[in-house]
């Protein structure tokens, strides 16, 4: 049972890091967004954001000020994604040495085939596990919405946000925002809040 909880904790933590992750090679461009349904104030939302605690606090504060019930799901993270949920680690998987002992050539071919398949399956299963974790978050935090906000690169001119509706597993909100010189954490988060609460930035 304890192991199970640990595993869940790891997966949840992994997901937090997973979503609120760094943006490499991000590109600037025009602001564009899509929102299917707005979230009125008082809605429970889980917010995932990567960054230092002061950044997180600033973001959470803005949402709380706007009247949203913010679930504290990534307020305290100790693990890194690379420790627990890194796809690339599976490239090093070595479980095949005993796959086929009939003869060495056969073993090598079987190993190749099996290795390819394991990696491929892992890519697919990764999505399946992620779905399970999202449902755990939904039940554990009693929220139907998760908001992902990427602000790590905001000072370099780029931020983005995504919203997931957990009961349907749909993406209901996507927002690319090229940050300007005058933008601050507050103005960027304010833009996200305005978009999800009114339907336009």
């Amino acid at each position, binding site marked *: 049972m304890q192991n199970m909880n640990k595993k869940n904790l790891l997966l949840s933590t992994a997901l937090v*890091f*997973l*979503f*609120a*992750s*760094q*943006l*490499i*090679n*991000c*590109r600037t*461009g025009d602001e*564009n*967004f*899509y929102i*299917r349904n707005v979230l009125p104030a008082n809605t429970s939302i889980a917010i995932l954001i*990567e960054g230092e605690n002061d950044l997180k606090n600033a973001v959470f504060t803005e949402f709380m000020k706007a009247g949203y019930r913010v679930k504290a799901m990534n307020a305290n993270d100790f693990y890194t*994604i690379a420790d627990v949920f890194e*796809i690339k680690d599976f490239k090093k998987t070595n479980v095949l040495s005993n*796959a*086929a002992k*009939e003869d060495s*050539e*056969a073993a090598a*071919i*079987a190993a190749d*085939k*099996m290795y*390819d*398949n394991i*990696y*491929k*399956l892992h*890519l*697919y*299963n*990764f*999505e*399946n596990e*992620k*779905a*399970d974790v*999202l449902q755990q978050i939904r039940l554990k935090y009693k929220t139907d919405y998760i908001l*992902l906000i*990427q602000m790590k690169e905001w000072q370099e001119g*780029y931020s*983005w946000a*995504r919203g*997931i*509706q957990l009961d*349907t*597993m*749909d*993406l209901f909100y*996507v*927002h*690319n925002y090229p940050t300007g010189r005058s933008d601050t954490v507050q103005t960027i988060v304010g833009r996200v809040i305005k978009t999800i609460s009114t339907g336009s930035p």
Partner: protein
Amino acid sequence: MRKQSSYFRLRFGIWTLALFAVPCAVNATTIAIGSFISSSDHPDVKELEFRVPIEFMKVLTIDNSLKVIQPQESKTALNELNFAESSTFSKSQYSAICEKLNTNYFVHGTFVREVNIQERPNPYQNVPEELRPANAPVGPIITKTVDLYSIIQFYDNKKGTVFSARYTGENKKLLTITIEGMANSLLPLLNSDKQSFQTDFIKKGSRLILISDLDNAATNSVMINMLQQGFFIAAASNLEFTGLDNNEVQTLRHIATLNSFIDEPSPDLDQLGKYPLFPTRSAILNLKNKNRILDIVFKNNQNQVATLQKMKERYQADYLVIVSSEKPVFVRAIDLNSMNLFALYESIKITEDAESSEVSRVLSALKLLTEKPELITVKDIGKASRLPGQGDDLAAVAVLLFDDRTNTANYQWMSNSLSSAITSSMKKVFEFNTPDAALLAENSMQLIKTEVPSPVDLSKFKTQTNSDFVIVGNYRLQSEDNQMIITAAIYDLSTGRIIGEASEITSVDGELFNAVDSVARQIVQAIYRMATSGT
């Protein structure tokens, strides 16, 4: 006046078209048609062995730029290489075949008919006999189901990959399904510009999972575009912190679904070369008796399908789309409801301009998937067998009434039935003219009554009826065992030579009807052999 020899005038769609296609195919893509073998002797499946290559050649000859190597030539190459006809080959065998035939592509196939008998205990077995209802079954409940399907293997020698597609259908429909399926999947794959097949499209309002190698910003742009168009995006993939890079997405190029499979063929191990691509009941049972390597490879395919099914359950998604934004842009699209691969693009041609970006490349790919594809129909295939300018210059084939030599009045019906069955079978496969019925009735008696027609009789018949070929036959009863013997032969009237013969010995019961069909098939096979061997 007839200008061509009778063989040329016998306008079997493929044979004639293949001849015309060759001169146009100086720098053409070459494809070799191999054997389509049946794992069953059942007539429904056996018939497909010779009909499918013919129909498939018709499909291929739609495109005049293709050079088509006929099954007979492929068979000769296999013999020279000492390869037995098989449902699949290893990678080195495929390469050797392609080199021998000097072809880029080699296509062959298998037909499988599986009879599955399931036995369940009788629900009344513990009920006293006097209490059972009148219509209660006696003994165990036996249910019999028949699975009939064809598997087409398409080897691309340049890429070293084999694309397999499985088509399932009921008896007679399978031919149509197989041919249309092959037309829609293989023909576009032969076109070097498209390298694609697409049999369905993503409907608006459906939910998709998109796996790509785009970075987060680009992913957002693509998703916004799709959402704005009215599609739903499942909250899977591209939400993780580094996402997948192109190398990782490349690993998803090779996939297994319920109807299709694309991978490199196995290396030279015999066992691996024959691993079953699709999970059939008998394949699963057979695996229990084979080595574990087979088991591993086979189960890999099953695992992929099972994992994708889980993905469908988790996200309630309708489609999984895998797309690479880096060139060459490839696409795989799976309908998660049917678990079928419905679109495959090996390399999407993207117009190069200043605006071309990874986002526009992926959106171009998605645009293809959301547009209804133009499918090739059987009707189109039928048209392909017609050559402009040939007019009525078809071969005239006379199918005479079979001579009743049973000395009873009981089997007179067979005389007309046999000739009708042959005519009907031929019409399914070939285009030909039928000589004037009155001329036939007037001039055929000599041939019908003769055991072996003389060249003089044949020549005379040709002149009288203006026919190119004649099919004659008879049937008689063996008094000792009451078996019926049916024989038939087809003659080329221009040379007086016999082209092929058919014979069948059958009991005088329900089997008689099968025998009639069998004779018809044998005759058509003989014509097909003649057509494809070019003799």
